């Protein structure tokens, strides 16, 4: 029977409260006696701290306490790093600096006051006596002998070197018929810049000895464990609540020092303490994304078949590790082959310390970098061999019957049909017609470019064997005596609309109206266990746990109903709020069976009372969504300005539960991926000062910069979970960045432009046009 609710454009449960300003984000929480915290931060990128004078701050109006790094030494644990990389160097990362600072914005001291403005004013009165040290912001310079070493106790600035190798390189390197194409590609640093900055309210209740923390986080359960460890509190006494969260994009998949200090202050003072990050702090001291240098080399047969790829990655990690900092570039290595069956691979990833804020997960987290490398390279190969970019890609795709496909990178792609999405893309975009238009315009001296990107990403993170904190997810379903259903999820959505998706999944299994299901997440006292929302895992892993829990409920209800109705459980159908035989002759209401189960008067033998079930779903592999994108760009010959004329995307994220939400995720992903290609860049100067510290300087995309996106989805269901869903949160970001750059380089092909580094701001393009005009 086809589902009446899965695959439907159902409006979000979340929306009525959000549209009226009634959602409660962290800063909307007010508690009696609540105090406010502000931080004094380093103004130097690298310096010894000779002294911290807090006297003026202490006597400032409204100040209750000032907390320094010296005070918390030994009392508050270090900021944790969970990345499991062999030989990884992990520098001590205290919540407040002592002795030295390693990046601009590093917290040095915290002021607690009766209101946030008084706290801020007092924090500005903290006097820090610095002895500046040499600064290194360029990771290549940080690797040179004689460079200043940021953490001298670790020997040098190399945090780790990871090598990944597969295939038969002897054979490849001795084959003189192969063409070798080399290129350096830069994946610039970005700011996640969620609209809601970070924030925390910590409330230690001395009576109950319980710490309650409201945090703008993607991972309440992991945060709870880590805060308990940091503070030395028994974990059952620690509760984390992620209320409404105004975007995260990976930046809130973390534990930050400020959160630790807020909890410490609350416990010390016996009062609730709130800290809300300012926008400048957000751009400065919330993790950044990307920042890789990729030197790539491909080996190609004369017919266009790519047989080998080597890549040397220099990943700028910043000064310290945050939760997953070093793990991110290792995902780049894992996905470097994209959707091509390239049999030989070599990747060396070097993680390097610099005097900057840490990089960590930002939408895509390592995969956009990989996709950028392979998709730029495929365009370069096509051009070198004078082949069409689409034809070259088709030539290198594995055929759909080769899946599951083992790659020499060590991953196994679950299932795909890359030909199908690309063919569809070429059709809906009118690709061959666009090529003709391009030819015509070129004759008129106009620059129209077509940029393809066929991507595959790694999602549904992931098997526990590959995830430091486990990769399962928790889901629970409870039927109330009234027949209404409560769903609990260990994931922590923050704008994705999963309250709706999860309700659809539960309603579908139980055959009840969507409105009868209420979904809760984000509170560790309500949801017993959980991992969180990141890595496009929420539906595929978290949704499956709910599906599996609902199946247990259904099985039990079928047994109870069959006992009452005198039929076999297998003969019963759950639909439209009823449990009935196929012919409808025998039927009970869903609520009626729920009451039977809970009031427990005449249960069949061996059936326990109650209707509550949970599941820990452990995926056996990642999933690998894929798609094909085409950007059509015009370059203004006078100004160098790039106009994105059209954007076409065909994405296959497996089973689609709610097309409206999937499209929304694609749209949002596109905006961020296009943002990286054209506008965004988080820039430090050589002294380690952030040059893009406000939203005036950091170019977050705006409304007038986008055309309407032409999007379509296809469905190749994954065998990894019973829903068949793969994940879609990051697809748009991963696919779009290379499509845009490929389009602009294609537009400028008549000028002999082979490559341009991002972002493709008008000045950069104008200089090239100008150069060409004078040449």
């Amino acid at each position, binding site marked *: 029977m086809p589902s009446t609710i899965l695959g439907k454009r159902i*409006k*979000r449960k*979340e*929306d*009525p409260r*959000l*549209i*009226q*300003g*009634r*959602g*409660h*984000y962290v*800063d*909307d929480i*007010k508690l009696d006696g609540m105090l406010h915290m502000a931080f004094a931060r380093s103004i130097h990128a690298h310096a010894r701290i000779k002294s911290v004078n807090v006297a003026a701050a202490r006597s400032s109006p409204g100040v209750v306490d000032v907390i320094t790094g010296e005070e918390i030494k030994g009392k508050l644990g270090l900021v944790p790093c969970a990345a499991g990389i062999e030989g990884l160097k992990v520098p001590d990362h205290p919540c407040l600096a002592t002795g030295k600072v390693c990046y601009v914005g590093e917290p040095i001291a915290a002021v607690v006051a009766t*209101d946030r*403005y008084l706290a801020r004013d007092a924090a500005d009165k903290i006097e820090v006596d610095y002895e500046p040290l040499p600064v290194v912001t360029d990771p290549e310079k940080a690797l040179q002998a004689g460079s200043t070493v940021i953490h001298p106790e670790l020997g040098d600035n190399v945090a780790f070197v990871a090598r990944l190798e597969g295939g038969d390189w002897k054979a490849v390197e001795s084959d003189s018929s192969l063409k070798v194409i080399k290129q350096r590609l830069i994946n610039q640093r970005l700011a*996640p*810049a*969620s*609209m*809601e*900055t970070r924030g925390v309210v910590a409330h230690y209740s001395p009576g109950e000895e319980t710490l309650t923390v409201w945090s703008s986080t993607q991972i309440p359960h992991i945060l709870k464990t880590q805060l308990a460890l940091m503070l030395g509190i028994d974990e059952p006494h620690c509760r984390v609540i992620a209320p*409404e*969260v*105004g*975007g995260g*994009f990976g930046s809130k998949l973390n534990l930050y020092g400020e959160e630790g200090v807020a909890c410490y202050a609350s416990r010390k003072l016996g009062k609730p303490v709130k800290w*809300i990050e*300012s*926008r400048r702090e957000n751009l400065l001291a919330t993790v950044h994304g990307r920042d890789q240098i990729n030197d790539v080399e491909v080996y190609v047969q004369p017919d266009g078949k790519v047989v080998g790829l080597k890549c040397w990655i220099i990943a700028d990690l910043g000064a310290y590790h945050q939760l997953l900092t070093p793990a991110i570039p290792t995902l780049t290595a894992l996905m470097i082959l994209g959707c091509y069956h390239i049999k030989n691979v070599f990747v060396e990833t070097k993680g390097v310390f610099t005097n900057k804020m840490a990089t960590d997960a930002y939408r895509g987290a390592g995969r956009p970098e990989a996709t950028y490398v392979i998709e730029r390279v495929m365009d370069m190969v096509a051009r070198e061999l004078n082949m069409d970019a689409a034809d070259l890609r088709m030539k290198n795709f594995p055929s759909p019957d080769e899946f599951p496909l083992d790659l020499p990178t060590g991953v196994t792609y679950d299932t795909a049909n890359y030909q199908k999405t690309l063919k569809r893309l070429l059709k809906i975009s009118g690709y061959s017609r666009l090529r003709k238009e391009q030819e015509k315009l070129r004759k008129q001296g106009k620059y129209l470019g077509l940029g393809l990107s066929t991507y595959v990403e790694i999602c549904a993170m992931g098997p526990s064997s590959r995830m430091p904190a486990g990769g399962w997810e928790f889901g629970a379903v409870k039927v109330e005596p009234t027949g209404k259903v409560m769903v609990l999820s260990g994931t922590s959505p*923050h*704008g*994705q*609309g999963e309250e709706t998706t999860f309700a659809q999944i539960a309603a579908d299994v139980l055959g009840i109206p969507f409105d009868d299901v209420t979904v809760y997440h984000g509170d560790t006292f309500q949801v017993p266990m959980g991992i969180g929302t990141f890595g496009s895992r929420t539906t595929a892993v978290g949704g499956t746990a709910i599906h599996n829990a609902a199946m247990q409920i259904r099985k039990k209800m079928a047994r109870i109903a069959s006992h009452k109705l005198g039929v076999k459980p297998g003969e019963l159908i759950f639909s439209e709020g009823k449990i009935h035989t196929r012919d409808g002759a025998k039927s009970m209401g869903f609520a009626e069976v729920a009451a039977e189960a809970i009031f427990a008067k005449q249960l069949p033998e061996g059936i326990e009372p109650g209707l509550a079930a949970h599941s820990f779903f452990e995926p056996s592999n990642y999933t690998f969504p894929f798609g094909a994108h085409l950007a059509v760009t015009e370059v203004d010959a006078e100004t160098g300005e790039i106009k994105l004329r059209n954007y076409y995307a065909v994405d296959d994220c497996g089973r689609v539960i709610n097309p*409206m*939400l999937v499209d*929304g995720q694609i*749209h*949002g*992903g*596109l*905006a*961020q991926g296009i943002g990286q290609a054209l506008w965004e860049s988080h820039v430090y100067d050589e002294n380690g000062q952030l040059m893009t510290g*406000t*939203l*005036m300087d950091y170019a*977050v*995309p*705006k*409304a*007038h*910069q*986008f*055309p*309407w*996106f032409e999007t379509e989805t296809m469905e190749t269901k994954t065998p990894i979970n019973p829903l068949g869903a793969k994940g879609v949160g990051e697809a748009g970001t991963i696919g779009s960045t290379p499509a845009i750059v490929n389009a602009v380089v294609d537009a400028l092909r008549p000028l002999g432009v082979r490559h341009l580094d991002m972002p493709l701001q008008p000045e950069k393009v104008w200089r090239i046009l100008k150069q060409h005009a004078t040449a």
Partner: protein
Amino acid sequence: MATEIELDINGKRRAIHTEPDTTLLSALRDQLDLTGTKYGCGEGQCAACTVLMDGSPRRSCLTRATTAAGKKIVTIEGVAQNGRLHPVQQAFLEEQAFQCGYCTPGMILTALALLKSNPDPSDDEIAQFMEGNICRCGTYPRIVAAIHRAARMMRSSAHES
């Protein structure tokens, strides 16, 4: 020196204490519990804090509370009337024109001001008018679609009445 002033917010007179540098955003959120208006940057660069002042969109983070005295202020809490969503809110729902919802109050109020001055805006006019409002979730194309939808709804209800 703190002084007490009265503001006209969502049609009600509300008393607040202000220092000379108290922002309207702070007065709304910290004193009046109108937390639907959001802090995004405090520098007028994101428009999450937008309210209407005598019908015009204003960044409440850059507006001193004292300058709001004597003006009619509308915040997101005052947009729905008698439990009924405004057509702009309804249209944002229909088009699913937001995700995390944090920029949404500012978007809705800016859109209200646009449709008041231009009941039938073009794509370009919408994009230009909304240019200062940042949505990091990237829902812009849907915001444009939602404003078109709201414009249609408002024109047809104006026609009926």
